[in-house]
């Protein structure tokens, strides 16, 4: 059995009141709750305030490049598919710089968990607008307000084939723990979009803003109903934010469909040595 302390690295350097503190605690609690320990968890961190969790969480980890955590996570999973692989990323990181990887990871149903810190701004570069910010959001890079409409990451994940789509609020640690646990347990691509206030740079989407607009999905909500899920994920257009598992279905994962690693994980297989069978085609 592991303890929270086993996962605890350096003391966090996030701003006081930042949603990241709650996310960090929730993540560690979920890992402990699942009986994992720092040697059985593979984590890939993006670059941003979210990615800075690399020094605060003990695990086999890559602190990756901005936007590229997902392909790193996919690579780890292919090489050692019996381990749990979690990508801890930001909204600019995952939906902006790495948007293409996000789409294709959904399509591939890669068995990784992506926890996105969605605070609508770039915190680490001091407050420029992120792709999830609402149209008209004023920031250092968009003083007249952003022209583009926000990306809808949940709808994107759903339509591109993700098999687990959830949303949580950084102000509710106990729900975060439960949902992150479910996401990690899910076999297939799981997205946990965390609505997270940035106390330093986002003066609009603060705790009060979210507290007024979030709501829990009802117990009887049918999470395997795609059409229903589609209705839920567009509620963001009316500034309503459903919390919980919005969609979950079981489908074969990417590595499930690789016959070459059916029996053994890739890194543990014996070396292939029947070269003469390959050379035949060159005669």
């Amino acid at each position, binding site marked *: 059995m592991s303890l929270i302390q086993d996962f605890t690295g350096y003391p966090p350097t996030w701003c006081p009141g930042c949603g990241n503190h709650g996310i960090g605690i929730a993540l560690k609690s979920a890992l402990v709750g699942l009986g994992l320990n720092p040697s059985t968890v593979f984590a890939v961190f993006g670059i941003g305030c979210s990615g800075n969790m690399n020094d605060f969480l003990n695990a086999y980890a890559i602190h990756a490049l901005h936007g590229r955590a997902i392909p790193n996570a996919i*690579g780890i999973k292919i090489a050692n598919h019996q381990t749990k692989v979690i990508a801890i990323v930001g909204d600019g990181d995952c939906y902006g710089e790495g948007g293409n990887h996000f789409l294709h990871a959904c399509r591939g149903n890669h068995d990784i968990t992506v926890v996105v810190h969605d605070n609508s701004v770039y915190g680490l570069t001091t407050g420029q607008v992120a792709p999830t910010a609402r149209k008209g959001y004023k920031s250092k890079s968009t003083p007249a307000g952003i022209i583009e409409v926000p990306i809808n990451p949940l709808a994107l994940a759903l339509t591109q084939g993700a098999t687990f789509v959830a949303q949580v609020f950084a102000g509710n640690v106990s729900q975060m723990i439960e949902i992150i646990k479910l996401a990690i347990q899910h076999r297939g691509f799981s997205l946990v979009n965390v609505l997270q206030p940035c106390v330093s740079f986002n003066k609009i989407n603060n705790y009060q803003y979210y507290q007024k607009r979030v709501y829990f999905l009802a117990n009887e909500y049918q999470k395997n109903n795609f059409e229903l899920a589609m209705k839920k994920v567009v509620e963001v257009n009316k500034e309503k934010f459903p919390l919980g598992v919005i969609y979950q279905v079981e489908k074969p994962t990417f590595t499930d469909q690789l016959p070459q690693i059916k029996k053994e994980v890739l890194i543990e297989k014996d070396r292939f040595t029947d*070269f003469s069978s390959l050379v035949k085609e060159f005669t």
Partner: protein
Amino acid sequence: MNFTWKIGGEAGFGIMTTGLVFSKIASRSGFHIFDYVEYPSLIRGGHNAYEVHVADFEVTHLKPIVDILICLNKETFEKHSSNLNKDSFVIYDKKEFKLEGDYKKIDVPFKKILAELKGQGVMKNTIALGASLAIIGGEINELLKIITEQFEKKGEEIISFNKKFAEAGFNYAKSNYKKFLTNWLTKKNPKGSLVMTGNDAFSLGSIIADCRLYCAYPMTPSSSVLSTLAAWQDKTGMVVRHAEDEISVINTALGSSFAGARSAVGTSGGGFALMVESISLAGITETPIVIFIAQRPGPATGMPTWTEQGDLLFAVHAGHGEFPKIVLAPGDVKEMIELTTKAFNLADIYQTPVIILSDMLLSESHRSLEKKWLDDFVKRYEIDRGKLINNSKFNPAKGGTKLQIKSQNFLRYKITNDGISHRLMAGTPGYFYQANSYEHLEDGHTTEESKERLKQVNKRNKKTITYLTKHFQLPKTYGDINQAEIIFVAWGSIKGSILETQKRLLEKGKKSALIHFNHTYPLDKDKIIPLFKNGKRHILVENNSQGQFGKLLQQETGIEIKEKILNYDGRPIWPEEIVRKI
């Protein structure tokens, strides 16, 4: 025996397949081959040509005269007649075009045979190949055997249907052109040679080296590595991923490498450009990775199906920040096997990116490779994973290291004399560590402290010094430097052309030597300078417009080669051109 066979026709009519079949027939008949393809970046409608140089001695490039030209259309003759002489055979169908000029004309009624046998247009090449075999004294059975192999899965009916066209062409030429029949391809003692391209050799090399993951996005001229390894994966157990873009390609491979699998990626210049930020990530996280680049003429989309050595300096300098990197550039198919397998060891030993630089010429031209050499090489080759600690598969006989780690605090980036730290197999119970893209402490945690920064930069730089001491290999010299009037200096795939040039020069009584670099970067100044201290005439020969290796050599050693022969029209440099320019 020493002759050139060439076929040309419209793209989409099986020119590539037919050319390779001819190369294999020549190889199976006991000859050495070198072939070269010309094709536009189109699937249908352009002009394709396939040229095979055949000899009973080792051949490394093309020769100027085409001795037998098969024209599947008029354009072939128009485009390639300048390489014919009056002794050249020209196979064509006079119903298709009128052949002017003084050649040994062999009119084969392609259209009539096709109509009689109810064949499709694409079978014209089989008729023509059969006819050419008759003229040069080849065995029709060799062609029939290959047809059987090609259509094995399609059943006996298809096999015998296709054979009819080969036989028709063969018999027609044999009975109607008795005066022209030669014995050029009369079977010798076949030595069991293989017919391989550089891409084939990289693919096979990666399997020999136990590469477990290959990730790529298709890009000419590297794409056949992706398709070859993908076709093999059921057998080899390798995982081949065609990812959404080259950034995902290299980051997938870095993820799997971090997790302990030997991993490689392949691309051409444009795709490599997208990977560059991640090359730097591999540098600072000290993650092994092998990158295969098949160069083509740039900039941007350039000339996708042609050849150039234009990305050397780009590869050498790729990646922001300072970190060690190794660039190897094989000169031929054999060196591709040697250096690919070595690259995987070097990547593991130095925990850094290793780049294999090929180009369209090396990647797509077939060369003969003695099978016995390959068998012996495979036996000799040993996997060396350097300082990887894999307790589950610990084997001291294979250079593995067992490390007693006292605390959980594994020092992934521990300062060492050789600059290389132990790399614990990620997932080993009882430990954890991070591969950090930020500057880091010995244990992997982020730092911005001056002292720690200096330690880590120096540590990474030290790996280059260790490499130069332990694994760098001096350029190979071909010919006797002491007796040579001219010393060529070159790198990578251009080797074959210069070796042919040397033969031509010797025929004219001129002795020459070639200093050929395949361990292209980094370079060991102290060991290289003495090679050039002879006061002789050195000529740099490269397939690019700026003499990139010359610049690199000057940058690294101070040696400046003033005389240059550079070719950058998208074609390989021809021996005749070098001879002419000397």
